[in-house]
Each structure stands twice: as structure tokens, then as C-alpha cells.
């Protein structure tokens, strides 16, 4: 039987497949992010607000705030109010408080998540402390604002949203500078 490919060519092609699949493994990382964005899963919030700023006076949505420390994080961290009742289209503000009780400067990063996940795409933050890292000096306490808009297109069956933050200690990764750069 005639051979379609010499062994050398065959092995070259198979090695190419191996390299391509190795690259594909890494390609799964951006694909995952794109899929999460496209389907509004994973609680990742939407980008800047694009729609009209008209406030929907007829509708009310409860937004609950949660703050959690990741394992090993010692800061006191929490929202000033447990929940707000907001109107879609309106700009709202809530303050979170963080306090560093240790005697060392520390750096933290907050990671947000919105649930139910199908509502995440309709939750727009215009200002958030999670956009940057927080540096707190020993014993320092700060109030950090979050400004957000709930989209007018939010599905009608969603009446209750949760905005959850997990606070991570990233001091080892990003050593804090001595002066208050926060």
C-alpha cells in the first residue's frame, strides 16, 4: 500500500499538533474570559454605562452588599449599609470601610462579584475601590466609595441583586510604599 506521508513528515505534523495544543491550553484563558463576558456568567460586572441616564421611577431593585475576607486577611472590611433600594438608571453610592489593625503597612485587592449571574451584565460600576489596590498604613481606616448604576434593561424578574467583595492580602506581591499612596 502506498504511503501518503514519509515518517519524517508525519512526525513533523504530529509535533505541530502537539505545539498547537499546548498553545490552545493557554488560549483557553482568554476564551474563558470572553465566554464569561458574552454569557454574563461568573459574576463579572459590565463595563461603562452606555444607555440613557433616564431613571425608571416605577421600578425598585434591592441591592445587597457583602464583604468577605479571603483566608489569612486580617483587615476589618465591610459596607456602611447592608442594602440599598435603588431605581434602575439612577446613580447610587455606597461606602465601604476598611481598617488595618496590624502594625505593618499592607496592600489589598478587592474582587467583586454580582449575583444572580444573569444580572451581572446589567450592573455598571462607575467608581469602585476594586479598580485599584488599597494600601493602608498601620492602624489606618479609610472609607471607599462605590458608585454604580443598575441598567434599565435588567430582566424584569430580577428584583434583588447582591454585590459581593472578597478582599485579598497581596502585600507579598505588591509591597506597600512607605507614604500613603492609597
Amino acid at each position, binding site marked *: *500500500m502506498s*504511503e*501518503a*506521508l*514519509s*515518517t519524517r513528515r*508525519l*512526525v513533523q505534523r*504530529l*509535533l505541530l*499538533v*502537539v*505545539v498547537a*495544543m*499546548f*498553545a*490552545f*491550553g*493557554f488560549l*483557553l*484563558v482568554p476564551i*474563558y474570559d470572553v465566554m464569561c463576558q458574552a*454569557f454574563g*456568567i*461568573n459574576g463579572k460586572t459590565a463595563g461603562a454605562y452606555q444607555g440613557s441616564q433616564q431613571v425608571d421611577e416605577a421600578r425598585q431593585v434591592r441591592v445587597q452588599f457583602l464583604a468577605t475576607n*479571603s483566608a489569612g486577611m486580617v483587615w476589618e472590611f465591610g459596607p456602611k449599609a447592608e442594602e440599598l433600594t435603588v431605581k434602575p438608571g439612577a446613580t447610587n453610592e455606597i461606602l465601604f470601610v476598611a481598617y488595618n489593625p496590624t502594625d505593618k503597612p499592607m496592600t489589598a*485587592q478587592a*474582587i467583586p462579584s454580582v449575583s444572580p*449571574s*444573569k444580572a451581572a451584565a446589567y450592573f455598571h460600576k462607575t467608581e469602585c475601590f476594586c479598580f485599584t489596590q488599597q494600601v493602608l498604613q498601620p492602624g489606618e481606616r479609610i472609607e471607599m466609595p462605590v458608585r454604580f448604576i443598575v441598567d434599565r434593561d435588567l430582566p424584569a424578574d430580577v428584583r434583588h441583586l447582591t454585590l459581593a467583595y*472578597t478582599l*485579598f*492580602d*497581596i502585600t507579598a*506581591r505588591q509591597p506597600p510604599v512607605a507614604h500613603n499612596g492609597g
Partner: protein
Amino acid sequence: MSAVIDTDTGHAGHDHHHGPAKGLMRWVLTTNHKDIGTMYLWFSFCMFLLGGSMAMVIRAELFQPGLQIVQPEFFNQMTTMHGLIMVFGAVMPAFVGLANWMIPLMVGAPDMALPRMNNFSFWLLPAAFTLLVSTLFTEGGGPNFGWTFYAPLSTTYAPESVTFFIFAIHLMGISSIMGAINVIATILNLRAPGMTLMKMPLFVWTWLITAFLLIAVMPVLAGVVTMMLMDIHFGTSFFNAAGGGDPVLFQHVFWFFGHPEVYIMILPAFGAVSSIIPAFSRKPLFGYTSMVYATAAIAFLSFIVWAHHMFTVGIPLTGELFFMYATMLIAVPTGVKVFNWVSTMWQGSLTFETPMLFAVAFVILFTIGGFSGLMLAIAPADFQYHDTYFVVAHFHYVLVPGAIFGIFASAYYWLPKWTGHMYDETLGKLHFWLSFIGMNMAFFPMHFVGLAGMPRRIPDYNLQFADFNMVSSIGAFTFGATQFLFLFIVIKCIRGGKPAPAKPWDGADGLEWTVPSPAPYHTFSTPPEVK
């Protein structure tokens, strides 16, 4: 193993040496597919005993509720290493060993297509497993995050030895990929004249498909451990939520490798059983073509079902439905295979020598494992089954009487060809029955405790599970001890026994039975004619 010098007068070149070299260097430097196959099989058996002894530690600890023998930290290392060693050290190398021995004989090739690479891919394995097992003796212990090494357990919270684990996985991956390339090149380029693709024995077919699975997913495994390495040492955040990564991403990438991996461990067994059942039914295999297509269909489906391992991580409803239905779809080609095996036996002149016993047990018990797989595929039910002993029962039913029984059946079936002697049939049957009883005693009660809510990977359990766990442990000890009988049978068979004819099984079919037993060191130097 004694090698018989090929007396074929067709060889003119005198620089062409016929027998194996002498001494230890024969094994280090060999490029002979039979030598390398033998080394793979012995290596795999050593790893089987090592991984098995870890299972014995696990079962000894679980013999009674409470902590008696080992601490939870060490228990975690045992479950992790047991899984890793059995998957990458025992099952996969055993099939590569069988492929090395049998594929050239089955397709009428003189050797594997890339003999030097073959040698290298074997010798990477002892290096990889020495690296992996050595971590048990390091301060902080070996890998303790489960064989699935989910991040952040395996990154943020991992012991220091995780870096050695990562390099060990890299080495195993390179070894498997080279082995797979070799198998593909051999099958596609070295078949005897007349051996068309659709005339190949099913073992060759299933290995060809397995090899493609290997080169498709082992690089993804290499990728995921590389990402772990970068997260741990180079400050990236692939799986670190604090840096914008996502631990769930790890599970997606891992299972994109992991699900095809479970078929890598079972497809070659399908092929071997498809040779053995016709031989002892004295009938040709029923539905050869459908077997080939069913294997290909299973391989294809294995790429689109990975998220059924992660129903509980919070994937959207449409995702749950898609992965549930896709998973259930796998039952269709698998059902075709089981139907074909049963139909092959139907009205055959059956005899039950040891390979046939293992093969029939394979069909029955693998089907039980398949059914519990279907139960796990039901997404809403999986929320209860997830991470319980029911999952442990399921995958041990497909891997022990599936992969391992397939390997035992193959070993008994081809031992006469490898050694030139018949194995001891009485002892072989004893090995089968003790394995069969021990294995069912060990794993069947796990279904019950799992459904009742006993979590996996925990060294202690609620009192209500005590009786079933004791039964499981007794079964596991029986199964474990029985494998020394297998070792004895194999050594006895190598050292002597009734001389085996070229074709010891009257119903067997295939080119491997046209060469003498034991198979000469060089076979098919001139390709055979296949009509």
C-alpha cells in the same frame, strides 16, 4: 527472556546483529520494541504495586471510623499519590507496553517506526516517578491536593514539593506524547502490504485513536501545570482571584485534558477485549466496522463533555443541560460496543480460560461502571453525588475491572507469545476469582456509602458507614494481596512451563500468532502478505 535467533536466510548484511546485547546495557540502550514493551510492562507492574500499597494505607485507615494509623495530612498525600501513580504510572505505561509489544506484531512491522525515541520515552518514566515519589520524603510532604490538583489547593496552599510534582508531570507528558507519536507513525506507515486500515485488529485501531487523544490533550495538561508553575513562582495570576484570575478556569483546562484522559485509559482495553472475546468464542468479532466507528465517536465526544465533572461550580443552566446530554450521548457508542461483545459470544463455542474470564468480567463490570456514570451525568442528581464515595465507586468500576482487567486479560492472552510458555491455568483462574471477589467487595459497598453521603478524600467518617467500610477494606486487602499471585504466575511462566505453540488459542486470529512462541527478537524483517 530468551531470544531466538532469526534464521531467515534472507538477511545478507553481516553487520546486522540478530540477538539482544548482553548485560544491563541491553536494557538501557535497547531500541527493540519487545525489550521496550517488556520494560514498560514491568515498570507499570512496579507502579501498580506501589500505588496499590498506598491504597492499602487508605483502606487500613478507613477500616474503622476515627483516626488510627495515619494523620490526615499523610492520608491526603496517599490519596493524591495513589491516583497519580495508578493513572500515569500503572495504567498508561501498561497500555504503552502492550502497544510496543503487540502493534508491530499485529500490523506486520519489524519494529516501531521511531525506535530511539521509543527508548527515550520509556526512560523518562523512571525519572519522572522517582521525582514524584521522592516528594513524599521532603519536609512538608508530597502532593496532597488530590490527583486532580485543583487550584488554589495546588498553588496558593500547596506544599513546597509541588514544583517537583509539576516537573514530574511534564516528564510524563513528554513521554506519553512521544509514545503516541511513535504509535501513530508505526500504524500509519509500517503496516504490512495488504493490511488496510479496516483490516487492522481492533487493538491497533483503538490504540491509533488513543494516540490521537494523547497528542491532543497531554499538551493541554502540560499547559495547565505550566500555568500553575508561573502562578507559584513568577507572579502570574492564571488561577489567583486576587490578581484577576479564576480558580474555576483551572477546572475547565484540567478537565479538558482530564476527560479524554479517562478514555485514553480505557480505549486500548476495549481493543484488547475485542481480540480476546472472539478468540474464546471461536467466532469473528461481531460488528467490526461499528466497533471502529463507535471508538472514534467516543473519542470525539470525550472532548465536549468535560464540564460534567464540575456541575456544582455554578455553570449556567444551558451549560448544565448541554454537558448532561452530551455525556449521556456517550452511552450510545459504548452501548454499541457492549452489544457487539455480547453478540460475539452469542452462540459461540465458549471456553473460559483466564483471559476470557477477565474479558467477560470486563464487559459486565465495566457496564456497571458505565451505568453509575450515567447516574452521575444527570446534572441535578450529581449535586448530591458530587465528591462522595459514589464517584469513587464509579471510577474504580471503570478503571479496575475496566482498564486493569483489560490489562490482565491481555497479559494472560499474550504471555505464551512473550515467554514461549503456557502460564499455570489453575493459578490464573485463582487469580481471576480472587481479584473478582476482592474488587467487587472493595468497590460495590462504596456505592451505598456514597449515596448515603460519605464524602471522598476524608480519613474519617460517620459511624453509620462503619460496616460497609470494613467490608470495602477487607475486599481491597484481598484484591491487593492477590496481585502477588499474579507476579508469581508471570515469573513462573517466564521460567518455564508447558511450551507454547505459535498459536496457543485455537480461536485466535491475527499476525502475531504466525510468528513462533516466544516471539523471536526480530520479527517480520520481511513484511508478511496480508490477503
